[in-house]
């Protein structure tokens, strides 16, 4: 199934669009999604290590604005956001 990951902060550099779509298998986890994003960077940005570090240190949140753990199972078509390390103010 197709899910969409909305991009914020440094992760906006991953695409000209505000989101990236991924095809994931039902019951895959956020950890799997994180690895898919790393694969995306490998493919599209020649394995850019800075981008990979951003993905590894980011949190993911569900469409209801809750941070979800790496073990969170994706059981239906839903959207997530990638939340790179923060620092506003």
């Amino acid at each position, binding site marked *: 199934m197709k899910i969409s990951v909305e991009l*914020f902060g440094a992760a906006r550099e991953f695409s000209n669009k505000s989101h990236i779509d991924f095809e994931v298998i039902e019951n895959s986890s956020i950890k799997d999604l994180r690895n898919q994003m790393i694969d995306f960077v490998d493919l599209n940005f020649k394995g850019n290590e800075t981008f990979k570090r951003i993905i590894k240190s980011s949190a993911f949140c569900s469409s209801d604005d809750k941070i979800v753990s790496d073990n969170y199972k994706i059981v239906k078509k839903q959207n997530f956001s990638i939340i790179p390390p*923060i620092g506003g*103010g």
Partner: protein
Amino acid sequence: MLHTKIIDASKVEKIEISKAENFLNQSKFGAVIYFVGTVRDLNENKKVTGITYDAKESMVIKSFEEIYEEVDKKLNIKEKAVFIEHVKGYVSLKEKSIIIGVACKHRDQAFALSRYIIEEIKKRSPIWKKEHYKNEDSEWLKGISLNN
């Protein structure tokens, strides 16, 4: 009483202390403090020309509300008014990125509350800074991971 808003820098509405003054000016409070964050010209020896702020707005507003709600217990300040606005988009040197206005009965409460809010926003609110430099480079600043 709480007021929160994300101000889009590309739109007409501006981030202004006068709005905070109007919100916080109440006879029951004897202490009002404004914290104003602005864009400075030097960071880590790099000449900064401006900052682009990004924000996940719904989560930012939620975090402001949570911070406000928990102050009762953390600081034991029941009567208060809090005004928080943060900019999203490009902000030039010397321009404001955030205003935190607090009103309490007494000054010790107001100082503690203002400090608490800005420190918690730094740790919890999903806001990001991209610095723009004089040599035309730009860079997203490192921050605090919310990935526990």
